[in-house]
């Protein structure tokens, strides 16, 4: 599939349809691919598309779609939702974008492979449902299924909501996974003090590196309110447990109804904080209170928090549902 994408990218560059290609470049290890812009056919030889290409490229299109000429971007099914959401918010110029929809069978998480006890990994090869791991301490195998990113376990399905052409290996019919809200429900079932303890434990690790915010396709503000001295909210680190909560509550609230649940926040968190649960809680609430809503499914619908009906539930619902 990688060869097919490279060939297509080269063809589109050659015939002038696109001026550059946004994809992934081979890393210095098997699991170290980085998002990259390719401007020449030769450079595309370094292009890679494999199980470790988890990064969502849609946010990079804010920058790239402002450049002269079209940019070719490869989007996985879940990435297309982010892309649509960015179009809705006028952050991306669709006309300057050429999208090739690529298929996805769940992206791999090197941390899971490491957590399985593999140290000093020298290479990782995918062989069907098995990963062959070669390390300085010996070789190992693990089931691919066990190494996929958490977000992929609750995949939204194989459908691309926006694209110009489909790669041949795309499975648009791939069904969505069950149980997207299981983790949220598990927390909801806890006692408040247990939930509080859970989140204190998680959020106290936050180092305020802002990776979650900077990677988030919904967090597309030119200047985040938390960087803005005008609102006395600017913080660079968590100097108290309050600020950990403040930052994550407000961040999740700001993207509520706009978050497509792409899961990048949790993927990039260096401290492995399950930040996606905050967003998913909002999604689950919105679905429950205001009807099913999937951000990024289209480019025109009104986000739930900029919308209302006259008979919406009252805030007291939070107390009533126990």
């Amino acid at each position, binding site marked *: 599939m990688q060869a097919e994408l490279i060939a297509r990218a080269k063809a589109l560059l050659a015939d002038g349809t696109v001026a550059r290609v946004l994809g992934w470049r081979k890393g210095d290890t098997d699991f*170290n691919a*980085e998002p990259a812009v390719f401007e020449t056919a030769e450079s595309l030889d370094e292009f890679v598309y494999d199980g470790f290409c988890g990064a969502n490229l849609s946010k990079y299109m804010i920058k790239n779609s402002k450049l002269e000429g079209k940019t070719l971007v490869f989007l996985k099914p879940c990435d297309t939702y982010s892309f649509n959401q960015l179009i809705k918010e006028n952050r991306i110029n669709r006309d300057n974008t050429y999208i090739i929809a690529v298929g996805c069978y769940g992206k791999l998480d090197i941390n899971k492979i490491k957590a399985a006890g593999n140290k*000093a990994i020298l290479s990782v090869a995918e062989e069907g449902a098995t990963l062959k791991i070669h390390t300085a301490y010996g070789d190992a195998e693990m089931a691919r299924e066990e190494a996929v990113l958490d977000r992929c376990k609750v995949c939204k399905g194989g459908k691309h909501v926006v694209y110009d052409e489909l790669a041949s290996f795309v499975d648009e019919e791939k069904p969505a996974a069950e149980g997207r809200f299981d983790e949220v429900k598990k927390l909801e079932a806890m006692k408040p003090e247990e939930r509080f303890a859970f989140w204190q434990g*998680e959020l106290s690790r936050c180092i305020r590196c802002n990776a979650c915010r*900077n990677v988030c396709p919904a967090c597309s503000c030119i*200047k985040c309110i938390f960087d803005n001295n005008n609102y006395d909210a600017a913080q660079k*680190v968590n*100097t108290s447990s309050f600020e950990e909560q403040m930052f994550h509550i407000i961040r999740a609230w700001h993207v509520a109804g706009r978050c497509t649940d792409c899961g*990048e926040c949790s993927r990039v968190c260096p401290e492995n904080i399950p930040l996606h649960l905050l967003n998913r809680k909002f999604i689950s609430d919105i679905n429950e209170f205001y009807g099913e809503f999937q951000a990024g499914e289209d480019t025109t619908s009104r986000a739930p928090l900029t919308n209302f009906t006259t008979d919406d539930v009252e805030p007291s619902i939070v107390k009533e549902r126990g």
Partner: protein
Amino acid sequence: MFKITNDQMPKLLKAIAETKDLFLPINNNGVTNFGFYKEDCTPDLDTLRTVKSAKDAFFPQSEGLYAVTTEDGKFTISEEEYCNKDFVVFGVRPCDVRSFVVLDKVFLSDPVDTYYAARREHGIVVSLACHQPDESCFCATFDIDAAEPEADVAMWNIEGGYAWEAKTEKGQALTESIKALLEEADVAKEVETEKNCIRTILSVLPNSKLDVSAFGAGKTDDLFNSPMWTELSNACLGCGTCTFSCPTCQCYDIKDFNTGHGVSRYRCWDSCMYHDFTLCAHGTNRQTQMQRFRQRFMHKLVYFPDREGMFSCVGCGRCVDKCPQSLNIVKVIKRMGGNSNV
């Protein structure tokens, strides 16, 4: 040389914590970071790398500098209390130990940073050789020996426990204070085996000794305008993961917090990757992420050597592991300096 058995270790930590603050790797929900010892914490000496480095011990992510209260338009300044109690930083890996040298160059040079100096004076570093180095380790690049820590006390993993060796006066004193829990033993041979083991593994790791001849003092003109920077930085999110997990990044910001009963002036880490790092009223001189990215690596690999005669990278590999988009100093070194391992 002494030996501590694995089952004695918890007692040892408790004993240290009785008289001193103890800062050590603690596992919280599967993630290990340095933190202060508490009765119910889960010390973790097995994890090779904490997410954040040990630099918090001397240069915490945020610290109060002084407070200002105002009455009838008149200010009263109260300086924050300095560190005045000995504390132990436990289980520091050799690369992080070296990072303290880098921090010293910055904070102990004239004018001395008194907050840092006080902590440094009271801190005792107990280090632990890297039992199982990882593929992202490249400390040897900077002539750090993962098998031979240079701290107040050095420890090695040996069969059934750890070898313990005091290396400085501070280390001796600490050893004395907990001697009851240590077992005098001739473990030199086992330590040697461990060292060899570490060195052998390091030799097969892909990044263990990178060629950094393209970097160092005086290379500004060679590297500054390289077209490679754009390519390398294209995917950079401008987050602070690399800088905040880095043991040697030492940039900070000074900010005010209004507590309602005064203004607390505190210092906190800042990241040169942030777009507002150099922003002031008239704008910023580093408009693009490429410039900010370049700054970080030029600082570590060229400007710092220019001024201090050493690289300000210790090859700990945290940024290699943690960068959300897999950009890192190893890629920079390899792409701009050639690919070969020395």
